[in-house]
């Protein structure tokens, strides 16, 4: 058990009052994909279900307009 009291995860959208995710903002969306370009699960990012759906939608839109790659080797 490394570092006993693990900090509680929180949903950054709820916490910061973000209502809309911009699919054109690649830098922001990059926080929700791993370095292969896959969408990160909620258990890693702490996003609430409501916003996870929006994250996924935005990432898919971004891929369509070639703002984000579908796959990649080292995005970060």
């Amino acid at each position, binding site marked *: 058990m490394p570092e006993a009291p693990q900090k509680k995860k929180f949903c950054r959208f709820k916490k*910061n*009052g*973000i*209502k*809309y995710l*911009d*699919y*054109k*903002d*690649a*830098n*922001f969306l990059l926080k929700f994909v791993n370095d292969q370009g896959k969408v990160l699960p909620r258990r890693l990012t702490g996003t609430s279900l409501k916003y996870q759906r929006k994250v996924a939608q935005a990432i898919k*839109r971004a*891929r*369509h*307009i*070639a*703002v*984000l*790659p*579908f796959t*990649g080797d080292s995005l970060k």
Partner: protein
Amino acid sequence: MATKTKSKTTESVVLKDYESVIIFTPVLNDEQLKDAVAKYRKLITDEGGELVHEENWGLTKLAYPMQKKSTGFYILFEYRSKPDFISKFELAFRRDERIMRYLTVSLDKHAVIYNQRKRNGEFNQGKKDQKQEGAK
């Protein structure tokens, strides 16, 4: 702001908010691009829509090659129009060989507010994200 188009539903057509990103081929020169953009701008207003905002991202690198090209001209239109205009608009995109890809999204109320604030330059380090600013 209804212009008199002779459609079946005459008065009180509800305009909805939309946003279209269009990717033009990089082989166009400035003049051709300007013409193409003007054509779609005109299409929006001719069909009784209002252009809210237009953005030209210029020649942008694509995240992956598309039709063997690695760059494209990105044009963004934000507009209000009748819902049945979209199918016409997209049909025009599909017929146009200069367009590599397009994406039309209907905007909810949060999106409209977000876009407005973004245009006013409120997102430098503010609400959107504390750590970094969106350098495209």
